[in-house]
């Protein structure tokens, strides 16, 4: 007990001194003072760590030394060295060196200047909000005078504190201004200059912890400018520095800033990563921002029930956060169709200072759910001047609500107008972000997450209602990959003639889907350009469930159950026009281009049964040769290249000890080498990085028979952390493939789950297959789930034989699948293989 008491005492004293001298953040004029890092009293009962004790001793010595006690220098240097050596605090010796170079008098003068700063800080912190506007200019002047006086001194560090506080006051002033305010430009420039000078002061003194505050302020300033990417970089630097110097308060602030940025660019994957980072040192019950962001994340993942449970378990203790909590809970209640619960929460929020935009949109969403579309239109279908000031996202959401209300009222033309407005806002937002950053390299999705595919579904349905199904297909395709096409047409819009050309390139035309949270739409475009569309009355979560159950039934050999599930899925997602066409077709090997978006991309379309008891049920694979694309890779399909070109056969990796990892892969490559006499073979010991890179850049067709492995070493902002295994345990990551420029006519990826990847709304699965497509590969043979080594050995020679007969990849894959199926191989094996591409 005595030891614990001593530690607590030391901790208390050390925190008090350390906070005041070294790591004390600048005062908080508006926000609550940080609760943890700067709190001078350690929580009761919490034992201090070795680091805390050492840091406390260091801070006490530093304070005494600055006040003129030269005798403390040895202890100070010793503790600084230990902090650097044992705890990675390399800045500690630099801080000591700075003060050790000063005379005792210089140090005392510096300490006195710091006291002057603290006086101003305390006045700012305690200032009554009512007089704030009047007094802000006085504070700014005082801080600038202090900085000017101290900067020429030997201990110039307090000048940095004064400049940082001045910038803080300016940034907060800027946040309360409108974009049109005439003072804004000048204030932006002044705040930027103050922050830059403050950082320069701290850097010159070798002090890192005091940099946290201006770095965080710089992030906020860039956000106010709309420079999201620069803000992100500032917050990242701040978060990393805070982690290194162990100031969790600023780490939290920086991560909260990054979470806001991820949301602004519709980057759900990045958002989840940031939440995990924040949760690694903050519990949800002590950080409302974490609770809020996680609950919204669940809500957007169609997990309203879990979001509700989480919110109720983590009701914020801070009364200031309660209204925000009620707002999020109301959104969740709406999603759970608990309309009375949502209404009750909304009523409690009225007149309590919530943003008018939030309340307006919440009320309109509730009205729409209660089928009161007239109320929605009355509230939102007005000129901008009659609406409260709204964010861009708020305006787009309002337009979507108006569109949906018109659609409910049976006015598709008016709905279309509103929905086009919503899409234009999203397009403009995306274009502005694109000016700062290539969104293609990230997991961001403006259409999928920021606008939401629900808006695209509504627009497609409005067009279908107006008998303009072809335009609906165009809208769907544009939303699923408008800005990053692979043929240099970046930023160009897909035109009607482009889509007609794609439909005309396949005997059965093309079919495209859009799946929103609540419903979807599908359009078939025939080779002659006639389009017919229909709504899909299934939720995204239902289709995901159906696809999973079908896959499970296939893999566990429950073929009768698979047939039943397949029939349900086929009825839900395949347009009637297409079913009729396929069942009536004389030939069964016509190609059908499937622009598979959302959950359809994971669906084993090939194994879906069509027909009925009278006509007999046949699998989609028996009726057409499917080519799948997650988005149109170019404006026009182009001419199919010859598949009889030179082949490079690669695979059969060896482990670190030289043992073969896949016995059948070696045999498979041997069989293919006999089949393709001109092919180059790189198997076993020859399956090394150099050979693979050469093959990828050769322009030849490639056949890869290997493992697909998950590895954090392969992580990237866009692609799933997966790679193709090479001999010796080496991995070729998906992200590397994307950068290699593999413009092969055809790549066979005979490994497990090569079609899979990280699912991004409106952008599809981002894995090794997508990396090949992004790098310029025209066609791929991929797998939907893990494949047996020995079945791959059977399947791929059949595929190559069909290619040698002159069939394109889609037809060749179909023939190989049919051959296996007809010889009695279960669908679990043959339905895994699919062609992604355009022949």
């Amino acid at each position, binding site marked *: 007990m005595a030891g614990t008491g001593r530690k607590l005492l030391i901790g208390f004293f050390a925190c008090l001194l350390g906070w005041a001298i070294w790591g004390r953040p600048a005062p908080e004029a508006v926000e609550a003072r940080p609760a943890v890092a700067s709190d001078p009293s350690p929580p009761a009962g919490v034992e201090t760590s070795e680091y805390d004790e050492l840091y406390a001793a260091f801070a006490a010595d530093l304070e005494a030394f600055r006040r003129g006690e030269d005798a403390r220098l040895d202890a100070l240097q010793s503790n600084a060295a230990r902090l650097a050596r044992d705890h990675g605090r390399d800045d500690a010796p630099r801080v000591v060196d700075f003060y050790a170079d000063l005379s005792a008098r210089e140090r005392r003068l510096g300490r006195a200047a710091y006291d002057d700063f603290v006086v101003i800080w305390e006045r700012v912190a305690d200032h009554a909000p009512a007089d704030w506007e009047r007094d802000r200019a006085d504070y700014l002047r005082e801080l600038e005078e202090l900085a000017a006086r101290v900067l020429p001194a030997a201990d110039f560090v307090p000048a940095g504190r004064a400049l940082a506080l001045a910038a803080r006051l300016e940034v907060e002033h800027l946040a309360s201004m409108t974009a049109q305010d005439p003072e804004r430009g000048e204030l932006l420039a002044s705040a930027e200059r103050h922050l830059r000078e403050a950082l320069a002061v701290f850097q010159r003194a070798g002090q890192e912890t005091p940099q946290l505050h201006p770095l965080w302020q710089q992030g906020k300033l860039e956000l106010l400018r709309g420079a999201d990417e620069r803000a992100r970089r500032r917050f990242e630097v701040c978060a990393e520095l805070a982690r290194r110097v162990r100031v969790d308060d600023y780490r939290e602030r920086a991560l909260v800033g990054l979470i806001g940025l991820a949301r602004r660019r519709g980057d759900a994957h990045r958002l989840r990563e940031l939440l995990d980072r924040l949760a690694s040192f903050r519990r949800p*019950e002590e950080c409302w921002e974490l609770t809020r962001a996680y609950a919204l994340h669940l809500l957007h993942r169609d997990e309203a029930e879990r979001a509700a449970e989480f919110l109720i378990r983590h009701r914020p203790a801070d009364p200031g956060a309660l209204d925000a909590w009620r707002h999020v809970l109301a959104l969740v209640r709406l999603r759970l169709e608990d309309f009375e619960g949502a209404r009750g929460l909304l009523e409690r929020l009225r007149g309590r200072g919530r943003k008018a935009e939030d309340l307006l949109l919440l009320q309109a969403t509730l009205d729409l759910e209660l089928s009161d579309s007239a109320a929605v239109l009355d509230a939102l279908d007005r000129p901008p001047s009659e609406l409260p000031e709204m964010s861009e996202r708020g305006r787009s959401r309002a337009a979507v609500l108006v569109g949906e209300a018109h659609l409910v009222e049976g006015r598709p033309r008016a709905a279309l107008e509103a929905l086009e407005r919503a899409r234009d806002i999203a397009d403009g937002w995306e274009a502005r972000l694109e000016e700062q950053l290539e969104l293609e390299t990230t997991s961001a999705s403006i259409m999928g997450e920021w606008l939401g595919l629900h808006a695209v579904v509504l627009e497609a349905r409005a067009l279908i209602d107006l008998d303009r199904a072809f335009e609906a297909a165009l809208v769907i395709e544009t939303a699923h990959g408008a800005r990053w096409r692979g043929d240099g047409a970046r930023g160009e819009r897909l035109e009607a003639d482009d889509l007609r050309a794609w439909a005309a390139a396949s005997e059965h035309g093309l079919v495209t889907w859009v799946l929103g949270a609540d419903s979807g739409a599908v359009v078939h475009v025939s080779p002659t350009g006639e389009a017919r569309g229909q709504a899909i009355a299934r939720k995204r979560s239902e289709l995901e469930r159906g696809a999973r159950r079908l896959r499970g039934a296939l893999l566990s050999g429950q073929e009768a159950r698979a047939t039943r599930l397949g029939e349900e899925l086929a009825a839900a997602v395949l347009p009637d026009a297409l079913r009729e066409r396929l069942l009536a077709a004389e030939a069964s090997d016509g190609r059908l281009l499937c622009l598979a978006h959302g959950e359809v991309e994971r669906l084993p379309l090939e194994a879906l049964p069509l027909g009925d008891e009278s006509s007999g049920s046949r699998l989609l694979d028996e009726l057409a040769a499917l080519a799948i694309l997650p988005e149109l890779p170019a404006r026009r399909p182009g001419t199919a290249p010859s598949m009889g070109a030179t082949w490079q056969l690669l695979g059969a990796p060896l482990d670190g000890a030289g043992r073969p990892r896949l016995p059948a892969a070696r045999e498979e490559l041997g069989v293919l080498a006999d089949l393709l006499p001109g092919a180059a073979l790189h198997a076993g010991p020859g399956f090394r990085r150099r050979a693979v890179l050469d093959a990828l850049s050769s322009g030849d067709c490639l056949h890869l028979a290997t493992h697909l492995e998950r590895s954090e070493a392969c992580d990237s902002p866009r692609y799933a952390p997966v790679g193709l295994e090479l001999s010796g345990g080496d991995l070729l990551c998906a992200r590397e493939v994307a950068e290699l420029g593999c413009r092969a006519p055809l790549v066979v990826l005979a490994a497990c789950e090569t079609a899979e990847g990280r699912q991004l709304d409106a952008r599809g699965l981002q894995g090794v297959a997508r990396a090949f497509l992004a790098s310029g590969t025209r066609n791929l043979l991929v797998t939907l789930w893990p494949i047996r080594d020995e079945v791959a050995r059977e399947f791929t020679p059949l595929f190559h034989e069909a290619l040698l007969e002159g069939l394109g990849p889609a037809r060749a894959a179909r023939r190989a699948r049919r051959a296996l199926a007809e010889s009695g191989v279960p669908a679990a094996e043959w339905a895994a293989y699919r062609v992604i591409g355009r022949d």
Partner: protein
Amino acid sequence: MHDPKTRTLPPLDRATPGELSETLAHWDELATADLVRLAAHPRSARKLAGLRAVEGWMREREEGVERAAEEAFDPARCPSAEELYDFGRGPGFRHLDEEREELLARHLATCGACSELVGSLQSPPPLPVEAFAPSPEPSHLEPESEPARPLRSSSTWAPFLVAASLAGLLLVPFVLGPRKASLADLPAGAVFRGQSDFLGQGAGALHFPRGPLLALPSTDGPRAIPRFELSALPDAAEYRVEVHRHDGGAFDAGNRIQNLHASTADFAAPSPAAPLLEGGPLAPGHYSWRAFAEVDGLERELGSLDFEVVEQPELAARVAELSPSSSLSRRVEQILELHARGLLSDARRLARDLPESPEREAYLRPPAR
């Protein structure tokens, strides 16, 4: 061998296990159309694939033997088939004395033909599918006895005789009826080109139950007790499993009927790397389960899987009769039967209670898909 294409196929949905086994034993006598039906039917597809693998293996070995015989066999110099068999430690081998073993080892170092033959013994053949077939009645199980020993010959035509003895070994179950099952009979997993691990996007880290799950007799009627098996997530403090009952269709989310929690500390046995959560009893019907891991206070979804609790009263009664004191061979036979019928979750549950062995661990390895 019978004349090919003369046997008729019984209705597969209604065939008894005995009829199915009989048909499978003579699969090469079926007409092509019947063979396709047999290969496509869930009750027989896997067994047929196994039988085909056996035949392929035997043909490959025979060809190897013939080739070796043609190319390099020297009757004057090579040891007898019996000796080679014993040296290769084929099933039922006899120990050779050390001196003889040394001599043979030196011979094998220079004789490719004999070396290949011995090597063929060290590479086990695919498991004969008929070994999966249960006895018609539990009372037919044979008492504990010495392992069956293959027929042997003193001919010096070693390669042919080794092949013949191997073939004989494989045919023992067909000719003599079921032999005593052992741990070595547990099926080894197939080789896959990767592992399903796209978390939250399918089965992911969820392994069992999946597919059909056998309902056992209980006072409340037939009930299955699921055991939820998943891969561990690093840093997880707690796991949660939701069980939903649904209508068996493609889209129904169903209702949550169980919500199970377990902390990482609960998984000290059998292994913290393989969390197992015991569920409550479930009546026949369709179910989904979702699993979550809590890391730093936030949940991460690990995936979702579906299963169906099915009634098979006869089989359930036999499984219910088993106890840890039942003989090993009986327990293994029961596992093999469950496995062959696609009741993988039940087979796995029984396999967990087997004595530790490499075969058991191989069988319990998480599936690739």
